Each structure stands twice: as C-alpha cells, then as structure tokens.
C-alpha cells in the first residue's frame, strides 16, 4: 500500500541496529545491500514488510532488516510465511532461504507454496554447500563434490531449482547472481511486482566452504557462457556474437555473424514450454547459463482465492452468528 504522504524511505530506514555477522567476503552481503537499497523504492510502508527465514547462513538475514522479521527453524520458513500471508494478505512477505533449507529439509514446503501460488517472494541463496554446519554437500552440489561428508565425492544428482519450481507450477521464476548488483535490483523489483509466488534463485559464492562457486559466470566480464534473458528480445549472448535457435525441440547455438538474427529465438516469459526448456540449459554445458526472468504469468493467488471463497460463502449463507451455529441441528428445551 503506497502512502504518498509519508516521507521517502531510504536504505538507512531498512537497516537494523544489529551487527552483521556473515564471513567477510560472503555473497550474502550483496543481497542484503540490494534489499535494503531497493525496498524503500517500492512505495510501501516499512511496517508492511515481513522477512521470514529458516536456518542457515542466509537465514540470519531478517535480523539485519529493520522490518518485521522471523528467524525460524530449519526448512520451515515458507510454511511460517504462508501463515503470515494468509493471516494478513496486505503484507509484503519475503522468504530468505538457502539451498539446504529450501530444497532439502524444506523441499516439501517449497513445492507446495509454489503450487498454491502463495503470494510470497522467495529468495533462494544457492551457494551449493552447507555453510553453517561447516561444509557438507547440499542438494545443489555437483556430482563428485568433495566435502567433509563426501570425502570420495558426492554421488547425489543435484537439483535444478528453476526446473523444480516450474514443475511445482510456479508463476514467477528468475535467476540472478550475487555479483550482478544492478540485475539483482531489477529481479527484486520484478518479484515484488508479481502477484503470486515469486522465486528468485541467487547464484552466490561461499568464500569459506565453496569458494569459486559460479566463478565461471561471475568473472570480471560476462563470459560467453551466460545469457541474460529479456522478454520480447532475441536470445543473444557473448556480446551479441552468439544466439539461440530452437528447431523443433532441439536447442542450438548460432554464430550471429554467419546466420544473422532472424532465426534467433525471442524470449517469451509467459511461455511455459519455453521456460522448461530454458531451465534445463543448466545441465547442458554447451548451452549458456540463463539469468533473468525465465517465466512469469498472472494467475489467481491462493490469497485472492481465499478472500473470494470467504466472500462467496458469506453471500450464499448469509450472516450467521456463533450463537446460531451453537443452536444448529436438533435442539430441545428442558424446563
């Protein structure tokens, strides 16, 4: 709810008085800075923001935001946020979670919150490692990952979070990178604007237990293997020297100089089939890593559904008091 009368909020208004306790160099700082910087620009009162988290390094996030916040238990942030959002649909609810928190112990809540299109913004800090428990492989760690818990290499297949989200009927799926500050700001704004469950996967480095995670995409210059998705724009990458062509269901990379842009696929974030295809590129080293909004559609939210249902029930059944309910069924009087 924007309030034009109130003074413009600044980053400072969103900083709590608690000392930030992440490791120096952690990717979490970048996300926190963007959240604090961008929330004030959304035109909503500070007291209407609620940050909910589970357990893990990133889950300390709510303590550092000067909003309402709930640092809960491992994996349950989305379930708690669900209760917050149903209890008061006017709030802007944000869940901060990690790859272990939301995809392992909290995997069930992750798919169900998305399936319901619960109007919650999910920020998944994916560093492909358990940091707070000091370095075990996570559900997004690569096969062969050597950690204390997998000294001979992990034999688990990693999850692909956007694919999982799409499979769970998510209505907004995006990906950004901790070091892409401007891009992240844009994704946060898109997530905020989306009515319904929004999911942003944030590629994030853990310089202590998984240093160099995503190094291949986060070098000083954007490398050839990353594509920034833009709705309605041809899918070009590597400084516009390469593009994506879809032939049938086969994805191929074309050299623009040779083929021109006419055959290049145009991104349509409302196309679910396309979204599934794009999300899968992550498992295909020959294809660029997709960053940006993969999928975004409008669909009635759980919260709107609940409001509509209550209003309809009131219309059909009329005004009934608690006393009326107590007196329903067969009653008799003892004198």
């Amino acid at each position, binding site marked *: 709810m924007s309030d034009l009368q109130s003074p413009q909020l600044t980053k400072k208004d969103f900083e709590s008085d608690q000392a930030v306790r992440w490791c120096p160099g952690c990717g979490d700082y970048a996300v926190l800075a963007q959240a604090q910087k961008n929330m004030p620009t959304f035109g909503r009162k500070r007291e209407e923001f609620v940050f909910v988290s589970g357990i893990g390094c990133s889950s300390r996030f709510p303590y550092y935001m000067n909003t309402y916040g709930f640092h809960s238990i491992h994996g349950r942030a989305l379930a*708690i946020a669900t*209760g917050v959002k149903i209890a008061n649909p006017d709030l802007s609810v944000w869940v901060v979670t990690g790859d272990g928190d939301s995809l392992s112990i909290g995997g069930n809540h992750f798919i169900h919150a998305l399936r319901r299109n619960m109007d919650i913004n999910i920020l998944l800090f994916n560093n492909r490692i358990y940091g707070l428990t000091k370095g075990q492989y996570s559900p997004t760690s690569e096969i062969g990952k050597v950690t204390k818990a997998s000294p001979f290499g992990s034999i688990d297949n990693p999850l692909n979070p956007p694919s999982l989200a799409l499979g769970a009927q998510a209505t907004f799926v995006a990906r950004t990178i901790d070091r892409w500050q401007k891009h992240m700001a844009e994704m946060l704004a898109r997530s905020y604007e989306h009515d319904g469950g929004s999911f942003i996967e944030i590629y994030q480095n853990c310089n202590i237990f998984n240093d160099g995670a995503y190094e291949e995409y986060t070098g000083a210059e954007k490398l050839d293997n990353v594509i920034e998705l833009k709705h309605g724009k041809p899918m070009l990458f590597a400084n516009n020297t390469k593009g994506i062509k879809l032939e049938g269901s086969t994805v191929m990379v074309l050299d623009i100089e040779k083929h021109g842009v006419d055959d290049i696929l145009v991104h349509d974030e409302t196309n679910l089939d396309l979204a599934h295809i794009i999300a899968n590129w992550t498992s295909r080293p020959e294809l660029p890593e997709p960053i940006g909004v993969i999928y975004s559609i409008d669909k009635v939210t759980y919260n709107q559904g609940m409001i509509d249902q*209550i209003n309809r029930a009131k219309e059909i059944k009329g005004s009934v008091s608690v006393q009326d309910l107590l007196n329903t069924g067969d009653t008799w009087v*003892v004198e």
Partner: protein
Amino acid sequence: MGKTFKTIDEAIIRFAGDSGDGMQLTGGRFTETTAILGNDLNTLPDFPAEIRAPAGSLAGVSAFQIKFSSRNTHTPGEQPDVLVAMNPAALKVHQKELIPGGTMIINTDAFTKKNLSFAGYESNPMEDGSLDDYFTLIPVEMNKMVTAACEGLDLSPKLVGRTKNFFALGILFYMYDRPLDTTEGWLKKKFAGKDDIIEANTRALNAGYNFGDTTELFMSRFKVEKASLPPGTYRNINGNFATSLGLLAAAEKSGLSLFYGGYPITPASDILHTLASWKHLGVQTFQAEDEIAGVSSVIGAAFTGNLAVTATSGPGIALKGEALGLAVITELPLVVVNVQRGGPSTGLPTKTEQSDLNQALYGRNGEAPMPVIAAATPGDCFFAAFEACRIALKYMTPVMFLSDGYLANGSEPWKIPDVDELEPIEVSFSDRPNANGDYLPYLRNEETLARHWAIPGTPGLEHRVGGIEKAENTGHVSYDPENHHKMVKLRQEKVDRIQNDIPETEVFGENHGDLLILSWGGTYGACRSAVETMQEEGLGVSHVHLRWISPLPKDLGEILIHFKNVLVPEINLGQLLRLIRAEYLVDAQGLNLVRGRPIGAGTIIETVKKILG
C-alpha cells in the same frame, strides 16, 4: 400390540455390523432421537481403521454403543443389554460382552456358510444351541424383510439391501418406545432429491418398527423416562464438534480472526472439516502439505495477530515438536489440539488412549514448558478449547489441549451455552513504543509475564523474533549464559503463573477419607460414575478431576494428603501417576488399562474395593 411396558432406569444397546452396514449412522440416529426425548446419554463409536476391510471379516466389524438413562449418566456403559448383530463376524466379536440374559437381534440372512466360516464359526451359533441358554435370541431375516418392504420401488437389490440398518433401527425404536419422526425428517434432508432412497429407508424403518410390534419373539417393551437435566436448550454433541465450536467462540470473544492450519489425521480430521465449513464466519482453514507445515503456518498466523490453532493426533504432535519449541521461545499464542489415539507409531488410529500426556508435557527439546489442558466429556471440549485459547492469549504461550478418540467421537446431550455469557477474552496489541521511544518485544506484563505483542503492519514497532535464545526485553539474539538461565526460568515461571487462573479444585465428596480417585481427560465419566456408586454404598471415596495438568492446581498437594489412598485410573501406563508421585511425594497407585477403550466404572469400583480391603 399387546406387549407390556416395563419402566427401567437405563439401557445399554450396541449396534454391530460390517463396516459397510452403516452402524455408526444407525447409532447416531438412535442417539439423536433419544437425546430429543430427554434421556441423558453417552455414546461410544468403535470402528476399524480400515475404510472397508473385506466384507464379513472380523477386522471389518464396526460398532456403536449407547447408554441412555432417566438419571445422570457419565459413561457409555460396559455390557450391553441388547446387541444388534448384522452378520456372524459382528456376533463373534461382540457376543461375549453382552450381559447374561441380554437380547440379541440378529440378521440371519447374513449367516451364510461363507460368512460363518469367515467369522471363524464351525457351526451356525443360531442353530447349534450355543447361545440359547444365555441370551434371548431374536433372529430376523432382515434382507428378506426389507426386500418385501421395498417392493415396487425402482431400486437395485443392492440398494434395497442397504436399508436393513434402518430396519434394525426400527426394531429398537419399537422396543424402547421411541418415535420415528426425527429419523424420517433426517432422511428427507439427508437424501433430498433422491426420493427413492428416502422412501426405501423410511419403509425399512417402519417395517422394523412393525416387526417389533407383531413378532412374538419378545413380549415386553421398555420405557426410559426423561432424565432431570438442568433447564436450558440442549443439543447432542460430540467432542470434535464441541472443540470446533469452542475455538470459534474464543475467536468471537477475543475479536480475533480464527486461523486453522493442519493436516488430516484420525481422529482429529473432523475439526478441520467443521472449521472449513465455516468460511462464511470468516474462518480461514489451511490444509497444509504436512503436520510440520500445519503448525508452522499457525505460528506465522499467530505472529501476525490471528487466533491460531492446529489439531492433530499423537503422531502429528511428534512431527510438530520442533516447531512447538519455536512457539515456546518466540512466546506466541497458539492452541495445539491433540485428539489422542492408541500409540506408539500408527498404533490404533481409531481407538482411544491417554498415552500422549508425557509427550504433551515433555515432548520438545530443551526446557520447553507448555501449558496442558484436558477435556473431561464430549461437551466439555467446548469449554476446554475456549479456555485453552483464553490462556494462550493472556499468557502469550502455545497451549496443548488434550482430547481423545473417545471424547472426539462420543456424544452426550449438551446444554447450549449463551455466547454473551462467556467471559470476554482481552487482547491488546502494542501500538506504540514501550521503552523510551523504543519497542522491546520481550518486555513483560508484570502479573502474567506475558510479553508484548506487536503485529506486522504496526508502524514503528518493527522487530524480529526467532528460535535463537532471546535477550531479556530486547529479544535480540543472545548467547550470554546468565541471560539463557534467566530466560529458561522466566518461561517456566510464566507457565507456573497460570495457576492463578485455575479455580479452586472441586472435591466430589468429602475432602478427606479412605481413597481419592484422581483423574484427567476422558476417564472423567467412568471415575465419576464409579465414585457415585461407591458413595451410595457408603464408602469413603472422593473424586478430583484435573482440567489443567500443566500447571497443576495450587491446592492439589493439600487435597491429596487428606486421603489414605490415592488411585489414578488412566489409559496409559501411569503418566499422570508418576507426575503426581514426583510432585507431591504421595504413594499414589495406578489403574492402568491400555486396550484402546475407555476404562469401565465397574473395573474402577473393583480396584478400589481391593485397595480398601
């Protein structure tokens, strides 16, 4: 015609049949009519966990017992006077519990060779004389009777066969002189639009009644006069419905929205079903993906200022344990209903037990005290649920409300309370800074130690809560040893102070004597009934029934020491017993039967007499 009436004080009847025979429904209809007639009553539905075990099998037998009386009654009784057995398996399972000389009404059409051998009978007990000496047998060809009654209706033989429970009901209505109109009205409503089904069941009901009238197999009918109940408007109610109403009434009296988050589980699911049907009263129900999400959503809703409730049974509480610890440390008001069933693990899902008391008291990591309240009767679930909400909100704490399978599904006539007369529940959300311009979320009410409650959306009071230990007052993360010790003690002290809200303990009988029966939860009826009987016999036996088990009432220790013996009957291996012995150093004894069924008053009387010599 021509049968003589005998007036009796009370009767116990049991309907037993296959899961598909509609015994619960039949029992429910008999109960409704009997309640409206003004008898006091208690019921005991007893059904298998399987939805449809193989037809005719022992595992598939479903039964419903009702005791109705012209006096006050507290239990569904033990040995029935009349057993209705719809097939051999039902007879096999229940015949041994019928009172010697009792009446058996048996659907002989179901006594086929196949069904007999399925039930484990080597010969037909209706023919081999094994029952004749002990019981009055009333063999009835129910299938043939309903087929004749439904002649001319355009219904399949299968559908016609399904009306035989109403035929049996008709016989019982005749025997006990009950009118048919309530049931006929109910049929019209239940099957509105299906005129053939209404007609078939109505005909079966009347045919059963007329059969009673014309048969010469029994010669007398029975009258059970009205019970003298306190004046008021009554309805029949079961525990789960009463619980739902109690929660709703608490929302009304507190002015908060009711949020229910939960996962289906026997025998608690009816609370979800009932609340879900009250959307027009603004009740928000959320069927979560699992038990943990159920309680977590409730914690979120409590943080946001709703009256937040979840209900489950023991296995669900086990799953919710970690989240309940979070509710304890964040000091948020919510109510957790545990409709206890047989355990451990899946245990006996449809049977009753009191074996989750330890779990309620201790089933969380760390020092995580939670108030525990238990309902005594089906109707009392309303008041216990209401009280659980009131205390949760007043003290800012999660509260565990223990019901059980017997209370949940059992029913009794219930004097409908006047909502206006229920105590208001005061809730005040913080709306301004509480400490020199700052807001300290863990600042406390001096009397109750309840922390302040500011909900999201309130300007200027933004704050964070969480599962890491809180610094006193500020609620900031704190690892300080002294602070932790202090907070652990504060959370316990807060629960202890609920004692100030517990009224003086009522001793039923003398406040000193040879023996005190101390009970909690659903064993109330059996204990009260046993004590009434023993007091009439002149024994020095009194009864105390606990509503709050955590905290225990202030005056309990003083009461206990005035009795030579203390007996604690429980459907567990002595969970309250051990608590009482530990708290008060009294040599209390237990009566512990864990059969998935209520303890009988007779068993309690026997035990007391053995103790008193």
